[in-house]
Structures are given as structure tokens and as C-alpha cells.
């Protein structure tokens, strides 16, 4: 098994692992950010260039460093490879440049965007971007279009990561949307008036790293940090039925797939679960979702919510804990 050193930390990984996957195995502090790569997709990555790293030593057999920064999501590790991510100053400058390019035509309408609070581009620009823009031209803009009964496409916000296209390719037999035109006028679109109509189309909302594809049943209902995520399940014939419910008070405002620590869904869910089951009684509640402490959602007195929503077992545990404390 090849050994790779990333930012000075050595790890042994199975053959065929990419640099990004190896870095994720080490942990969040070395893993490069990724906007287009999605580990649940068979084909993804290579486009956004935010995950670029410097390979300072090619391999044990051929130690010459790679001349250009490489996309870590598409580069397989070699035995003895040495990679600099956060330890290379030039790499951070390059990444800053990539973030600037991604934000160039992004409208930065976070105050009215449904994705704000769980937006990967927001996190990325907060961590790697600069406070000011040097771009003083008109940004490209598009009309909003409804693609299908549940999804709205706001192309202005799109960063063309191709995730939704790859998702549709993987989950459906016939993909009906794709990229039209080329260069900086290219857009995600369906063919003229076609709409996206299949049972798993809702997943393109989950994979979208920005607010370009939004859930029409959730639009402008609430900011995400006012809602409380709870893991739940139901028996579904089409999908695994393991979802995350987003509560505001007693109401389920939206249903999404469960996301792991990299913001990627663990199971694809069907449109039936996502859009048609928004009653408390439809679901078996498992308990509050784990929310990363750096997420804006955790700023929301989440512990209180936890107490309210955790019925049964957890409440008992807490009570017994208190009793122990009293004693």
C-alpha cells in the first residue's frame, strides 16, 4: 500500500486513492476544500480547481516534483509522494486566486439566498478568499427558471461545478439537463421547455454547493439557522428513507438527505420523501443531527432544541445525569 505524506503527516492508503481522499483520511486540518468533487459520485471533480495542491516529491521511484499545481481530487497517490497543501504559501496564494475567480460572477446575494448558512462557497470564501473584490464590471445574470415542479434554477449563482449534471447522469437513465453554451456564458439548463421530471431529481438540490438549485417548497420559508435539523426515517420503497428534517417550531419546513462532515449526502433520497412528506407524523424521529461546531446552525442555541426534541431515552439519560450531579 502506498504511503503518502501530506503537510508533513504520513498516511498509508489503499492503491488508487486520490490525494484528496488521503487528506480527508488524515483529517479536516489538511484536507483541501472541494467545490466540484463529490465522493458519492462515480465521476466528479477536476473542474473548480479549489483543491489544488503542490506535489513536492512525485514518488519514491521518481522524486521530481510536479511542475504545476495538481487537482488533488483527480490525482492518485504514489508511494513516497510528498504533498504540500496548507504548508505551501504559494499554494494558498493560488487557491485564493481560484476563489476569486469563482466569486467573480457570483452575485453575493447571500442576504436573500436560501443556501446562506450552509453554502460551501460562503465557507470557502470566508476561509480562503479576500475581503474585497477587484472586479468592477457587470456580473453575468440570468432569469430564474423553473425546471420541474420542485426545483428552481437560479443560474446567476451557479459556479458550474457540474455536480448536478453528474448526479443526474448517475441516478437517472435519461438526464434532461446539462451545460449549454461555453466559456463564461455557459449555463446549466434543460432543453428549451423540458423540465426535470424523475423520482430522484431532488438530489440535485442537495449536491449544489451554492444556491443555484433550490427547493421550491422551501424557498423563503426561513433562514437555515432558524431551523433545527433532526435525523429521521420512514419506510420507503424507492430509497433508503433516511433523511434529515428541518424543523421550525413544530413544522417540518424541508426534508434533505443526511450530510456527512464534508457536506456530502450519505444516502440519495427520493422526491416522495423529500417533497411530499412534511408532517411530523410521517417520520420516525431518531434524534438531533450532529452539527459541526463551526457551522452557523450551531450558533442557534441548539442545545436547547436538543432538550426539547430528544424524547424518551435521551431525556431519561439527562435526568439520571442530573440526579447523579445532585447527589
Amino acid at each position: 500500500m502506498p504511503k503518502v505524506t501530506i503537510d508533513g503527516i504520513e498516511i498509508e492508503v489503499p492503491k488508487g486513492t486520490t490525494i484528496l481522499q488521503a487528506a480527508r483520511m488524515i483529517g479536516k486540518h489538511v484536507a483541501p476544500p472541494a467545490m466540484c468533487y463529490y465522493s458519492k459520485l462515480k465521476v466528479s471533480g477536476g473542474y473548480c480547481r479549489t483543491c489544488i495542491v503542490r506535489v513536492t516529491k512525485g514518488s519514491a521511484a521518481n522524486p521530481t516534483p510536479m511542475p504545476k499545481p495538481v487537482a488533488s481530487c483527480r490525482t492518485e497517490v504514489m508511494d513516497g509522494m510528498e504533498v504540500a497543501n496548507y504548508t505551501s504559501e504559494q499554494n494558498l496564494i493560488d487557491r485564493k486566486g481560484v476563489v476569486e475567480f469563482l466569486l467573480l460572477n457570483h452575485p453575493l446575494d447571500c442576504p436573500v439566498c436560501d443556501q446562506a448558512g450552509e453554502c460551501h462557497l460562503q465557507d470557502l470564501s470566508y476561509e480562503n478568499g479576500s475581503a474585497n473584490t477587484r472586479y468592477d464590471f457587470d456580473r453575468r445574470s440570468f432569469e430564474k427558471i423553473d425546471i420541474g415542479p420542485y426545483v428552481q434554477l437560479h443560474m446567476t449563482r451557479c459556479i458550474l461545478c457540474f455536480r448536478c449534471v453528474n448526479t443526474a447522469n448517475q441516478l437517472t437513465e435519461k438526464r434532461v439537463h446539462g451545460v449549454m453554451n461555453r466559456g463564461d456564458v455557459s449555463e446549466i439548463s434543460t432543453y428549451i421547455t423540458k423540465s426535470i421530471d424523475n423520482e430522484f431529481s431532488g438530489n440535485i438540490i442537495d449536491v449544489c454547493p451554492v444556491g443555484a438549485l433550490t427547493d421550491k417548497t422551501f424557498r423563503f420559508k426561513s433562514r437555515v439557522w432558524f431551523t433545527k435539523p433532526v435525523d429521521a426515517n420512514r419506510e420507503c420503497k424507492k430509497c433508503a428513507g433516511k433523511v434529515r428534517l428541518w424543523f421550525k417550531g413544530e413544522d417540518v419546513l424541508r426534508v434533505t438527505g443526511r450530510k456527512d462532515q464534508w457536506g456530502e449526502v450519505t444516502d440519495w433520497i427520493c422526491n416522495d420523501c423529500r417533497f411530499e412528506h412534511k408532517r411530523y407524523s410521517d417520520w420516525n424521529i431518531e434524534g438531533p443531527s450532529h452539527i459541526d461546531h463551526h457551522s452557523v446552525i450551531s450558533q442557534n442555541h441548539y442545545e436547547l432544541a436538543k432538550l426539547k426534541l430528544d424524547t424518551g431515552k435521551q431525556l431519561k439519560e439527562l435526568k439520571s445525569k442530573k440526579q447523579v450531579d445532585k447527589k
Partner: protein
Amino acid sequence: MGKQLLLENINVQGISTLEVYRANGGYKALEKALKMQQSEVVDEVKKSGLRGRGGAGFPTGMKWGFIAKPEGVPRHLVCNADESEPGTFKDRFLMQNKPHMLIEGMILSSYALGANVSYIYIRGELLYVYHILEKAIQEAYDAGLLGKNILGSGFDLELYVQCGAGAYICGEETALIESLEGKRGNPRIKPPFPAVSGVWGRPTVVNNVETIAATVPIILMGGDEYAKIGIGKSTGTKLISACGHLAKPGVYEIEMGLSTEEFIYSENYCGGIKNGKKLKAVVAGGSSVPILPAELFLKTAKGEPRLMSYESLADGGFATGTMLGSGGFIVLDETASIVKNLWNFTRFYHHESCGQCSPCREGTGWMEKVLHRILEGHGKQSDVDLLFDIQSKIDGKTICPLGEAASWPVASAIRHFRAEFEEYVNHPEKIKDVKHYYNMRNLQPTA
């Protein structure tokens, strides 16, 4: 004039027909090659030191050696005739006048590689050349030079011409393959390289038109003999499409190692600058290579005369050198505006960016807009530094070389002609050709 290997007999009446081409010694190389072993043909090409004529200058023999040869999987040869670099028109000239030379090269190269189905991918705008090629291929089929059992050797080859839809990006080999397969012409992420997985996932070699045509004289005269022409590792002859402010622009075949001064000023070649003006700058190998001012183009930084070869033009790296590239030789005289010229190049790359990876998609448009602003007379002091910074953020961070092709001209123009950019920014009132520029922007089709 040096040796004419590719453009020999180009002026013979009717050379585009099979009959005249054969009467002038055509298809002799094929007859010779078919009597040789496949590996012998590859060896001849290796010995010749032929380097890819499409721009990168990768040794062709070595490229042929890389092709994977799994049992039972067909291999393909693809000819890249998607010549769309501004300033380069050598392949078009060759295909238009001597289509049979390309077909002969395709047959013997396919034989060397063991490919039984080969493709010529031609640029969509060159539709009339497509028809010329189709006609020539039909002639070759009728004469038994294509199809089953070519010239009784037992070698079969089907040759197809595929017309693109007109995209510069499809000149990139993996984008070309995608387009050939009927998909959107987006470059693939490498690895896997085409030599392992190319057209239809099969091992594929993609070569430029001129490279494939050059195999014909190599087989005829032998690899060693071919390697004697030229200088150092730049062997053989090269087609140069000279354009711009020249007395005699056109396609010239030169022996590698000709001095740049002779090429521009000799009566045998370009015949000097038009109207006796002074030379200002040269883009030596198609719009994507760095631009060089006259003094650096004629003499290297060390003071040696610069030669038309891969090594000599690249002497001094990007600081004081350039590249031979694809041979699109653009000459600018003292009246030309570097800024406007650069804007024109950048506009092209902006238009042709495929939109896959973010640095190229967003950066090319940004550079064009900044240059646009400078040209209009609304440039800011910081714009020149901004341009340089944008190009450095694109260079080397893209999937395919289009990003680099867009950033190198900007970098070199600012490196060598910074004063001119500052003149545009500081004295916008002096820009005389604003009107002309406006006319260009609102270009209307004229009768």
C-alpha cells in the same frame, strides 16, 4: 531556399488529384513502407527525430512508442486538422493543395501503429477543404489505396473525415476525441492519456496534419537522412505561415535552423517589412506563444543570432524567449498597437474557453474586459498590474493548455511592452484608433 519536402510540386497543375500526385512520385513512400515491418517504420520515424508540429514539439516516434497494445483491442490514429490558432494556416494550405500527401501519411502511419480505422478531424470552418479531402479519399479508395488489402500487402484501413463544429478547444487532443465521439468538446482530465484510452476508450495517437505529412518524406529518404536536415534536436523542415505586416506573407517551408533575420528580410522568404517600415514585435508560433520585441527576436539575450528552431526560439525561457509553437508567424510593424493586438488575442481566448474549469472560464473574460477598458481610454493605473496578476492565477491551474495559451501572451506583452500599456492608461486622449476600435466592436456584415 532550403529543401522543400512538403511543399515540393505544390505548384504543379492538378496536384490535388491522385493521377498527378502519383505521376510526381506520390504514394512511393507508402509502397516502400508496406514492404517494411511495422516496427521498422516506427524506427525510421524515431531516427528522424521528427517532433510534433502542432505546437508542443513532442517527439513523434516516442509518442508512437507509448501507445498501449492490449490484445484484441483496436487502435486508432487521429489526425488533428482542427487548426484554429490565430496566425496559423499551414495545415489548411497543405490539405487544400496536396490532400493526397496527408492521406498517404495517414495510411503509412496507421500501418506503423497497427490501426485499421483512422480519422481526420477537420475544423468546421474549413468545409471546402473537407470536400477536397473527401474527394481525394474517394479517389484513393477507387485506386485500392484504402480499404481492404492495400496494394496487396494485406493491410486494411478505413479512413474517415469528421468535420467539427468550429471550436478552438477541439484542437486539444482529448477535447478532439470527445468531439469525435459525438459529445460536447470538453477536454478530458488526464490521466488516462489517449495513448491508453482515447477514441471509444481505445488506445489512440493524435497527430498534427504536418507531422503526419512529414512521415512521407521520412520514409522516402530514410530517418537518418531526414535527421541531417535542421539543427540539433530540431530536425527536418517546418511549415511557417507568415502573416502580418510583411511584404510577402504566405506559407513557407524552411529548414530548421534558418536565422530569423533571414526569414523575415530575405527575398526568398518574407521579403522584409511592408512599405519599408521598422519591425516592432513578432509572435513566433501562433497567438498563444509569448510575443517578443524585435531586438530580442533577432538576437537572443546573449547576443547570438536567433534561429528558427525549437531550442533557439525558446532560448532564455519566457523572460527573453518564446516558442516555435505551431508556426503561426505574426509580424507587427512600428505602427501596430500591442495593446490592441493583445486585446484581440484575449478576446479570442475568452470566446473559445470551454467553461469547464474556473480559472480559464472566468479569467479570460476578466482579462478581456480590463483590456477593453484600457483600449477605450478608461484604464486605471492599477490595471496593468491587475492584468499580470490575473494571468499568473490562470497559468498552470487549468485542465488543458488553453488557460496557458491565454495567459502567456498577456504576460509577455506586459513584460516587454509595459511602457505602452502605461501610455494608454496615462494618456487616453492620445489613443488615435478608438474610432477604429468601435467599428471593430460593432462589426456589421458587409456586402
